[in-house]
């Protein structure tokens, strides 16, 4: 029985179940954790327990949190302190199966660890049903699959260059969904050759042969991942989502409620403005509409708008001779309001907990008070008509809005021509919103791709129509929008839309003309919103934003190793569950973000010693911070940007962008301009390595004296020492009190700058103390050898403080220039050492 339960657990451990408040006493499994709502313990009372599940030859349950809980919750089981066993009345599995479980304490040395000793299946299935996971080998072969599918998807379902893998495929959420998809679209270019009966049969085979054991593979794989504790996860979440350190109340929340508290804190972070800055970056990496931001031209977005449609688009310009001082700022703000419209739509949908499908179905567009004037909207809908950052949804009569699909910026970023006929736009739609690479299904191209013999190659040449039968109906849907992104219904044009092209449709179904002729993108938006590939596409983009890499691609190569296949199955299976949570919560993107961040892939800090490293080659969410993220991190830690010395900091007070990471080093450090540079660098090169060192050196010079110069209550770095705290007393001996303060501060800096806790005296700590002391001793020797010359006792000139942050000269008493004991420069050395660390530059 134990063996059976252990096996069953292996099927479950990655399951994403939320605590079911209606059955508060029932224990559940989620994200590799077992949650037990209430167990009464002598001397402690009613406690909520959370166990982390680990796999080392057998499944072990490590107690993570034990927090006081309400007596109104009924008991989940009992703890027997005579034999140190824990009986849990009901553990609910994803399948709905319930087990009564007994756990025995196996270790309480440092960690409290239980193993599984007994279990009883409380709701066993019908004895006639087959409980063993299916596999290709024991599923009867399908002639239909062999005939119609295996050429592209391979006999074992792992896919080929012509067709994607069918393991954990986008449409595999249910037999009916998969069958409908097959009936409507497969085989490519011959969709009518597989009716619903055929589709049902193939769908059943695909699910049974290639997907039945996914959960088992996934749970086994995830069991090898060691997770960040809640505090470390909190720090990572705060940096990633809102670019700051966690607050005290957030630490308090996780100390009280553990992982549940972390969920709450993440929810809270997603209400902050900084989160929406990050969200815009994540989506712009794909949409690339920031090409039209004023950084790439003062009116880069405005010039795309038709003067015929928007005669007031340059409303802010009173004429060359009448422009005032604010002209440039207003012009830039107006341009950026127009440029950011699609990204602001995403922000609006998320901020208001709307279904994320609205990014493609919204019957409105986002406007600021400035862009509203450009678009000719005069209704007073803004709280502050002078705030260019206040965005509101506006429905205009002139355009049948369909969210991003009808955004001028999107349509211009992906323009079309009379020969391209919107196919480029359609390809992007498939890629971004359906996670489908149209080019990947083209298969073998004809020897000469210019077919001049077939009357309409895209329809009549099977090699062409294989792709074009999928692409062209969507391309035709864009027919009411011209190459400049202007709304110009094709039926009103002189020649109409092309007749030698597939008519409007999606997934093999033609678009009903009634009610959709002039608003066909609205119809397309609704189709995509209902397509199971949409949540998968959104997940792909958000996973990239949160982990630095896209989900693993299906191993289409027939030579893919078993480790590669298992890695894909494990991650894909978990992400399918994340997607399910997203969809079930009304397509609320916050749910998707939260569940990704609670997943073991995001929280991975290591692997157990017996893990298959090949299957975890890409496990984890550490990635090189983008220049924008690094910029925010620096500001959050020091309270200022990396730009000039603190004495010259005031000179950039009014600059739009002053940080070196936003200007000088932005491109070198892998940033994108959304125009010619559209992909971020994810591995540092020699220039980036040099920039990191320069940044660490400069910032230590700016931050250390500045922090000492600030009033004690405002210091961020030096809480236990001041700039005169020397390890030596006047007799030249170690001062134990000062030394203790110095040690505390070194320890604090490790945690503050790197998020790592080092014990005083530990090897890692000792390196920093040695660096501090060696610098101090060597510096004193330098001063001594130089006869105490004034320039040797002073800080480097860029590091001293002689002006306030407004540029006013400080009095002699208020200045900080002298460093006769070499204390300040010794701290600079420690900070420069820490700031160049891996943990500083990687999430």
């Amino acid at each position, binding site marked *: 029985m134990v063996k059976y339960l252990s096996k069953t657990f292996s099927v479950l451990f990655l399951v994403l179940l939320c605590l079911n408040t209606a059955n508060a006493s029932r224990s559940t499994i989620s994200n590799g954790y077992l949650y037990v709502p209430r167990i009464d313990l002598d001397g402690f009372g009613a406690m909520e327990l959370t166990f982390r599940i680990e796999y080392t030859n057998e499944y072990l349950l490590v107690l993570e949190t034990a927090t006081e809980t309400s007596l109104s919750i009924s008991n989940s089981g009992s703890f027997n302190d005579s034999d140190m066993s824990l009986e849990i009345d009901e553990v609910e599995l994803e399948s709905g199966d319930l087990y009564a479980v007994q756990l025995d304490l196996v270790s309480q040395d440092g960690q409290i660890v239980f193993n599984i000793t007994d279990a009883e299946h409380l709701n066993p299935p019908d004895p006639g049903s087959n409980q063993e996971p299916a596999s290709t080998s024991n599923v009867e072969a399908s002639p239909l699959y062999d005939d119609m599918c295996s050429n592209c998807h391979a006999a074992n379902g792992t896919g080929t260059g012509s067709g994607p893998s069918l393991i954990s495929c986008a449409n595999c959420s249910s037999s009916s969904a998969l069958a409908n998809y097959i009936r409507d679209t497969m085989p490519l270019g011959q969709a009518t050759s597989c009716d619903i009966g055929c589709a049902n049969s193939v769908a059943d085979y695909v699910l049974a042969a290639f997907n039945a054991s996914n959960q088992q593979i996934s749970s086994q794989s995830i069991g090898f991942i060691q997770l960040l504790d809640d505090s470390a996860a909190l720090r990572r979440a705060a940096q990633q989502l809102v670019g700051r350190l966690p607050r005290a109340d957030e630490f308090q929340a996780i100390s009280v409620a553990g992982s549940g508290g972390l969920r709450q804190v993440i929810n809270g972070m997603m209400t902050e403005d900084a989160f929406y800055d990050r969200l815009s970056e994540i989506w712009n990496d794909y949409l690339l509409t920031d090409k039209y931001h004023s950084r790439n031209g003062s009116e880069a977005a405005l010039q795309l708008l038709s003067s015929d449609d928007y005669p007031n688009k340059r409303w802010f310009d009173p004429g060359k001779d009448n422009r005032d001082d604010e002209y440039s700022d207003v012009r830039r703000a107006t341009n950026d309001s127009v440029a950011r419209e699609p990204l602001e739509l995403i922000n609006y949908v998320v901020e208001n907990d709307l279904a994320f499908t609205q990014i493609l179905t919204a019957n409105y567009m986002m406007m600021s008070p400035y862009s509203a004037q450009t678009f000719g909207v005069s209704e007073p809908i803004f709280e502050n008509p002078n705030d260019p950052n206040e965005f509101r949804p506006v429905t205009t009569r002139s355009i049948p809005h369909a969210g991003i699909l009808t955004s001028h910026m999107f349509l211009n970023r992906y*323009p079309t*021509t*009379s*020969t*391209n006929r919107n196919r480029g736009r359609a*390809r992007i739609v498939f890629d971004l919103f359906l996670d489908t690479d149209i*080019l990947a299904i083209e298969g073998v*191209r004809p020897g*000469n*791709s*210019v077919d*001049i013999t077939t009357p309409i190659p895209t329809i009549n040449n099977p090699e062409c129509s294989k792709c074009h039968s999928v692409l062209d109906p969507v391309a035709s849907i864009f027919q009411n929008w011209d190459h400049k992104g202007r709304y110009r219904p094709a039926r009103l044009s002189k020649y109409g839309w092309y007749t030698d092209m597939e008519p409007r449709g999606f997934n093999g179904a033609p678009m009903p003309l009634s009610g959709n002729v002039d608003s066909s993108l609205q119809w397309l938006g609704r189709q995509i919103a209902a397509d199971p590939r949409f949540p998968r596409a959104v997940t792909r983009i958000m996973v990239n934003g949160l982990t630095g890499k896209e989900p693993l691609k299906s191993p289409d190569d027939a030579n893919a190793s078993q480790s590669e296949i298992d890695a894909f199955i494990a991650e894909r299976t978990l992400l399918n569950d994340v997607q399910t949570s997203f969809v079930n919560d009304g397509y609320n993107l916050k749910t998707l973000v939260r569940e990704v961040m609670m997943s073991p892939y995001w929280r991975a*800090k*290591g*692997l157990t*010693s017996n*893990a298959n490293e090949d299957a975890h*080659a*890409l496990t*984890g969410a*550490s*990635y090189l911070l983008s220049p924008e993220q690094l910029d925010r991190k620096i500001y959050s830690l020091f309270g200022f940007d990396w730009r000039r010395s603190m004495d010259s900091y005031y000179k950039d007070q009014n600059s739009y962008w002053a940080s070196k990471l936003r200007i000088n*080093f*932005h*491109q*070198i450090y*892998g940033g994108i301009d959304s125009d*010619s*540079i559209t992909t971020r*660098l994810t*591995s*540092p*090169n*020699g*220039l*980036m*390595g*040099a920039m990191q*060192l*320069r940044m660490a*050196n400069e910032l230590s*010079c700016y931050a250390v004296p500045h922090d000492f110069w600030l009033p004690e209550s405002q210091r961020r770095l030096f809480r236990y020492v001041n700039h005169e705290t020397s390890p030596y007393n006047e007799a030249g001996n170690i001062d134990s009190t000062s030394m203790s303060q110095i040690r505390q501060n070194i320890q604090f800096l490790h945690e503050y700058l790197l998020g790592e806790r080092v014990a005083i005296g530990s090897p*890692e700590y000792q*390196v920093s103390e040695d*660096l501090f002391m*060696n610098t101090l001793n*060597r510096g004193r020797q*330098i001063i001594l050898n130089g006869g105490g010359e004034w320039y040797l006792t002073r800080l*480097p*000139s*860029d590091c001293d403080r002689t002006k306030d942050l407004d540029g006013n000269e400080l009095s002699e008493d208020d200045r900080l220039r002298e460093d006769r004991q070499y204390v300040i*420069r010794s701290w*600079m*050395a420690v900070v*420069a*050492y820490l700031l160049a*660390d*891996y*943990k500083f*530059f990687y999430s």
Partner: protein
Amino acid sequence: MYRRQFLKYLGSSGLSLAMPFSLSNAQSAAPDRFWISVNAGGGWDPIYFIDPKGDRPRLDGRGPVNNYSVSAITSSGNIVFPSSYPTQIDPPDANSTGHFANFFPKHANRLLVINGVDTQTNNHDAGSRYVWSGKIEDGYPSFGAIAAAASAPTEPLAYISNGGYDNTASLVAPARIGEGEVFQQLAFPNASRPWEEQGEQSPYFDDSIYAEIEKARLDRLNRLVNASTLPLQKQQMNELLMSRVGDNNLNRLVQLLPERVSSGLEGQAEVAVAAFSSGIAVSANMHMGGFDTHGNHDQNHSRRLTELLEGIDHLWTQIEQNDLQDRVTVIVGSDFGRTPFYNDGNGKDHWNVISIMAMGAGVRGNRVIGGTNDHVEALSINPQSLQLDPNGVTLTPEHIHVALRRMAGIDSNLNSQFGIAESYINLFG
């Protein structure tokens, strides 16, 4: 520690097994063979200049192929080009080094033109990928990346990219340059006044102290690498480690750069050649966009071609000034070609057939290989004689890259890892 000393140290200690890039190929000697890819982003129009057709009307009634006169087509040696521009546009300055009448006579002897290369696509992403990697499928490294990986993947600027297709398949870390003046700051990270002479640079830390800081940083990274159990994290730490060692080599680059680095393509050329000359780079992508001339093709394309050819001319001047003409190979290409007819907006749309230009080391110049018919469909060539042959093969980017890889000495490991299934044709030699 200098990079090459560091690599020797790794080799002797066996630590190279943990390094991310292809250290098995890493040389401790400075690279001595260099590669430049010049990308005309957006899809250039070869029939406007190196595969000229002129204004002959098409038989299908779609007007002329081009708007310049057939009689303007001339040659310098074997290189054929139009000596003038369509009459209805503002032509480039007659003294411009990018004017056809100046560029081609000057460079014809070293120039190889390969016409009639079928990219089999008119999609920008796919075309760019195909032309610069030799494979239309995703995930293959650009030629610059694979050349750098084969020769000196751990040099700090092994593969410089100014845009365009620069996928590296994790073989090397691409470096983006930005503005040239930041090099001084990066070459001397401990100097608050890096532009001053050495000794006057006002270091943040005394040299002996900074050496200890640097050592502590590297030791720490090594400890983290050894402690990490996540393969991904370990790889990232190794990459960071490699990006940190040998930064002193940037000093040499700074010394070789012009006092003021030019803008645009010319500036890209200056940095690339200085990086080659200082031995810290192997390959570079030069990139300029604007060739996607769906409207007002003749005027817009003329301007872009002039700028492109001026940049190539400047590049060659830099190469010669640094005495690298026998060690640098230059390949010039684009996503795909443009239609042999005009659209309603006097523009030209996408067309799958293009031409490639090459010059420099390993390239026998004053030659034109391949061709196109009046409809600008690719004509086949005999793979031995390289003459047009209806029974021969149609050139594709695969042929170009098989030949390039042979010239670059790409080893069998890399070739099999990123295989191109096409037979070798001696196009360049």
